[in-house]
């Protein structure tokens, strides 16, 4: 009987110790997170406070992104692509160089825009204040935001005129950079490497199909597409080409990719006039020409250059959540 009592007491003690340790550890994590509820976010005149977004996060976000922001919400298992793990501080849609933190405005715009081809909808029905508060809340999950600063936004030069030469040159860039290996020779997301791609969590991921929609993962405008080349989509196999591509080449690529999209555009109109055929991956790409300003203009009228939102990070937020993005192409 005595031996039994001793064993029993030992068992209770060990269990209590392990339980307490686990609880303490959990409490520490919770304590740290509570400390981070003071995190702020700033876009223009708006200031977001993490603590103010607690209820909205629970209402709108927790089902996918999880209580701890780790992307392990109750529905995560059913979703493809998987929800973002905020604790890593790694985001696809940025105006900042690859490997750096996004600006608050990047996160704010992503919330308002949503992410096409995913379960992340546009949250622009929420008030501007609610969204900036949520940005602060998203930031509070990652220790990176406590110490590191966002990278400097990439500069987007003015958009040149769309010309037939630039479109042809863009096709050459498409071949030279081997975009076709993932996105396919026609940009249908069916390149030879497409089936082998994984994200940084080692989960299968599909390349973007340019024929599938009018929007890109991180926006709708030419500037948004330019930005994707230069910043890459962190956490995915889409790298940054900031070190490999000159601004002119990036614009040429933008114009060429526009010809692959389903909606009518001046690029598509020019491509039709040129009789542009898909690339032949086995041929040697012709060097990308550097068109002069006096290039033969396209039959379609040129648009006025637009200033990228990323080029002016201190610009005030949109008056209404309808306009965080440049106008959509139809």
């Amino acid at each position, binding site marked *: 009987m005595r031996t039994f009592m001793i064993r029993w007491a030992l068992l209770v003690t060990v269990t209590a110790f392990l339980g307490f340790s686990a609880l303490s550890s959990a409490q520490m994590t919770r304590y740290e997170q509570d400390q981070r509820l003071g995190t702020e976010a700033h876009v223009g005149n708006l200031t977001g406070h993490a603590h103010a977004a607690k209820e909205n996060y629970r209402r709108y976000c927790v089902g996918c992104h999880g209580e701890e922001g780790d992307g392990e919400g109750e529905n995560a298992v059913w979703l493809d692509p998987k929800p973002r793990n905020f604790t890593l501080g790694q985001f696809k849609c940025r105006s900042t160089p690859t490997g750096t933190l996004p600006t608050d405005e990047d996160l704010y715009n992503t919330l308002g825009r949503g992410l096409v081809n995913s379960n992340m909808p546009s*949250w622009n029905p929420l008030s501007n*204040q609610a969204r900036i508060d949520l940005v602060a809340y998203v930031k509070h999950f990652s220790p990176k935001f406590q110490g590191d600063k966002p990278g400097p936004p990439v500069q987007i030069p003015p958009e040149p005129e769309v010309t037939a030469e630039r479109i042809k040159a863009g096709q050459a860039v498409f071949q030279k950079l081997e975009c076709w290996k993932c996105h396919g020779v026609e940009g249908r997301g069916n390149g030879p490497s497409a089936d082998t791609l994984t994200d940084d969590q080692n989960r299968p991921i599909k390349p973007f199909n340019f024929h599938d929609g009018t929007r890109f993962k991180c926006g709708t405008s030419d500037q948004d597409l330019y930005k994707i080349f230069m910043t890459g989509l962190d956490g995915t196999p889409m790298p940054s080409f900031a070190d490999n591509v000159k601004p002119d080449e990036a614009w040429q690529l933008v114009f060429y990719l526009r010809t692959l999209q389903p909606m009518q555009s001046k690029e598509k109109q020019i491509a039709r006039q040129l009789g542009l055929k898909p690339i032949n991956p086995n041929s040697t790409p012709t060097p990308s020409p550097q068109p002069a300003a006096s290039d033969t203009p396209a039959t379609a009228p040129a648009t006025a250059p637009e200033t990228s939102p990323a080029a002016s990070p201190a610009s005030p937020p949109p008056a209404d959540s309808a306009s965080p993005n440049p106008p959509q192409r139809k």
Partner: protein
Amino acid sequence: MRIWEQFRLQRKLPVATSSLTMVLVIFILVLSSPPANALPAFARKYGLRCSACHEAWPMLNYFGQKFKDNGYQLMNDRDAPIWQNPSYWPVTFRIIPLWHRESNNKVAVDTEAQSPGGPIPAERRISSSGFDLSGLDFHTGGTLEKNISFYVLPSSDATASFHFETVMGRLDNLFGSPWLNVKLGKFELDNLVSEKRILTLTAISGVYQTYHFRPQGDGNIFGQIGDNQLGVELMGHSANDRTRYSAALLSSSDGQVNLPYGSNAYSGFFTASQAFNVGKWGVDRVGAYAMIGVAPTSYLTLTTGGTATPIAGSGTGNRPYNREGFVGLFYFGKLDFQVVTQHGWDSAWFGAGYGDFIGGNAPNNNTPGSVLPPGFRAPSWNGYLVETHYVYSPQLIFIQRSEWERMSQQADPTVRSDLGNVDMYTLGYRYMPIMTSRAGFAWHNEYSWMRQRGISPVNSRDVSSSSLLLGFDFDF
């Protein structure tokens, strides 16, 4: 085994203590249930908790309103059914087992006193209570293809007698524009404060009195904007849903199928609204609506055995009516107010008891030679509705609603000016202990009280009614 036996010897707790412990455990389990997560058919499709679209299910929040306005699409290019697992079947049922108590203070009953015509009636209060069921709704809706949506809702009463509450197909974003969406079928009118998404459930407060009010003796049932209607609707909205409009052409049939009333009787329903940011308080919205139409008052009849039976579909003699109102949704953080004011006007013919002769809601048939009683005028009235919600959390909401209906002109100039005026108050809460993206469950508790002026059947005094309801409102 030895340890277990030792414990078992000492475990001679009294039954009362064990029961109390069990109740306590259940209570704690309920309170500590997972956090709130709507129409589960949509929630299952998108993986969003119901709280994402509903301020409190079934009432929509701004995100849910946008989702609905987009044709039940998130607009993320994954809305078409081709993106779903083939086993996904968008069906949700909803039913409410409940206990309720209904009380009416002036019901006509026979007394022992006799007159030559039979027993002399008197007025008594009748109260009854007991366990009961609501009707059953089978919701199915979603997309047939990108930008082609549907919604079908077979709905039953508590005896499982079914009808189609909603059946509609919708073409969304025509020409790529959110400003052009066309819906055809039987559908919920584009009310910002929608009765089909009402949070209150009692016999009194389960509808908006403002949307259904009819002057005493009025035979027009066709202007009830709380009812789903048959027709076609053009609707549009800005990209973020801040600006909305709709215009609907409706059969003047109050949503009843098989063309029971007349030919060429149509109504129009028009809405417009604008939402705006109010800083940290959230987003407010103001809007206006109008229903303008005509409805029949004359029907052909066939007399058999001395009883004249109206012939369905034969209605003519269209008379006009209209309803117009203003709506405001005002948010103050966790507190919000819904305000509706409505003005109603019916043709004097409706006021004189012509209108729905087919359904028996109008006693008179406007046969050739019929004339209005001397002095009869077009009745008009005003309604006011204020509903307040305090959203403690996505799982717990407190609800208050007050409604006042006031006659401004009686059809019959000889009756008291406040005849039929309504005051209605309701108070309740909904607690959703386990609401996931797979199912919804709410514990609902509510009390409602209503007074109608001068309508008691014997003495023409005020009638007051009350209703208390406790129930489990769940869907899956």
